[in-house]
């Protein structure tokens, strides 16, 4: 599954501005580390909906689904499996 690297690449390109010397672990919390603010969450949702053809419902706007590379990947996997 290429989900993790794809999502990672999006996060790094959009919020860390290229590879530089940032070290983003796949379990790092986006909010706690300050990588993504609320506008960033909107961007992330837009990326997921476009890239994977899913619709993120209001009830799914939870840190459990969207707050790290691994959580996002699991969420997308569940959505695509449904």
């Amino acid at each position, binding site marked *: 599954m290429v989900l993790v690297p794809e999502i990672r690449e999006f996060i790094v390109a959009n919020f860390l501005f290229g590879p530089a010397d940032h070290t983003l672990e796949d379990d790092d919390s986006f909010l706690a580390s*300050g990588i993504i*603010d*609320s506008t960033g969450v*909107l961007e992330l949702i*837009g990326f997921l909906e476009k890239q994977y053809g899913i619709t993120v419902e209001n*009830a799914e*706007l939870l*840190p459990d689904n969207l707050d790290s590379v691994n959580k996002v990947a699991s969420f997308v996997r569940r959505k695509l499996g449904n």
Partner: protein
Amino acid sequence: MGATSTTFSRSALHLDAAREVERIAEAIRATVFGTMKRKGAVLGVSGGIDSSVCAALCARALGPERVTGLLMPEADSAPETTDFGALAARSLGIRTVFEDITPILEAAGCYMRRDAAIREVVPDYTPACKSKIVLPNMLDGDSYRLFSVVVQYPDGTHARARLTSDAYLGILAATNFKQRVRKMMEYHYADRLQAAVVGTPNRLEYDQGFFVKLGDGAADLKPIAHLYKTQIYQLAEYLGVPDAIRQRPPTTDTYSLSQSQEEFYFSVPFDTLDLCLFGLNHAVAASEVAPTVALTTEQVERIYRDIAAKRKVAEYLHSPPMLVEEMRTRGNVEHAGA
């Protein structure tokens, strides 16, 4: 109130209004006449509590004849805005100038750009509709609080749609023209009158970045930025701000549908947020603040986290322009030491 207190209560925000008014008035006099060498003050008067208190403080500090209040409605302003602004000014005996900023905003494409952004998520939106953007209540759970647009059609029916990042930023960038045009007008009068521009943010707004950079965030002095909103109401009462203004709920007066500040940004009542902000600033445990604001500890912790997150976003709004090196801007550089 200290870090180890176990008696947190609403009285934490009580202040000696007479003393605080004198302290602020002295600071205004020292800044405007002393440091800035300006002949008076200019400010926008929206008829809200913050600008009314600032106008009253300036009138007291500088004399009402040296204060100019600008009434600057635009197409989406509630009709009563100008009336309340005029009422505040009249009660103080300060001069007012009326400037309808709608034509400038139209020329800048403010409404057209905003409408185009709204249509990205509500395709049948037309200029005949009214709109506002809202946030869900932060107490409802751990879900991300993302902006939605609420549209009211001419027949009175409503639609609500979650904003995409493009639509959100489009609406924000367009409506920010309003605050920036108002500030441009304030500096126009400040230049004409050799006056200082007074900014009217309260502590919540200043701390949390609830202002437009180089819009309402720009000013020569911000005399109530250190005060919690609850305290500003105390000063308003002491200063004799008209009851009608003191009893108005705070609004943003930025969108065509009536919108409270709570809906737009804060999501909880300002007096609750004041106490939480005070608690966070003074290292009071969420469990101590919770009973005072009738919330659970978990809800207060959520507010603490939200305040911290907004502070991070506000860093950019507060930051001055970056310079590659420090530069001397006072004194005569060329002849220094010559």
